[in-house]
């Protein structure tokens, strides 16, 4: 099965490509000063990059010769995982979904506040110019 730190396995390799893509996405976002332009360009990159996410998700099915096992969770009622791993897996999935939602809400609220600060400061500067 595993027993190695790295192999050019389809899942590992496709996830490496996805990880490098994430780094490129963050770098592109940080490289552009204007947030609206950054949002436009990174959204295009995100649409293109979503192909890599799908590729990584189904890499095991596309190239069947890898080290990685098949799906751990499936709807076919077949037991793929031992109980000792199955229950912690469900707890971890629930925990990560909740953490993801909490972070998305927190960061979205922060972004809305940042945009409000920019709007208020711009309005104040314009009022000064007019006066």
């Amino acid at each position, binding site marked *: 099965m595993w027993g190695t730190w790295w192999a050019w396995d389809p899942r590992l390799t496709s996830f490496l490509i996805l990880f490098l893509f994430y780094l490129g996405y963050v770098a592109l976002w940080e490289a552009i000063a204007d947030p609206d332009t950054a949002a436009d360009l990174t959204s295009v990159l995100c649409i293109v990059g979503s192909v890599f996410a799908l590729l990584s998700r189904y890499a095991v099915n596309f190239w069947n010769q890898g080290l990685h096992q098949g799906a751990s969770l499936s709807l076919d009622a077949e037991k793929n995982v031992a109980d000792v791993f199955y229950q912690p897996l469900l707890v971890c999935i629930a925990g990560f979904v909740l953490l993801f939602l909490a*972070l998305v809400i927190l*960061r979205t609220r*922060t972004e809305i*506040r940042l945009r*409000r600060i920019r709007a208020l400061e711009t309005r104040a500067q314009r009022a000064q110019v007019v006066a």
Partner: protein
Amino acid sequence: MMPDLGKYADAVMGAYGASILLLGLIVWLSWRKAAQVRKRLAEVEGRTNG
């Protein structure tokens, strides 16, 4: 409860530790930025409304 990890125990527990550290870091950074921005907005609103 905890399966015997044998000779992989150090690597597995180290990976858990690194993951928890990174998750804690991302939560702390997000929380800190949110608090800073909230405070700055209150200041800007106080200045522009007052």
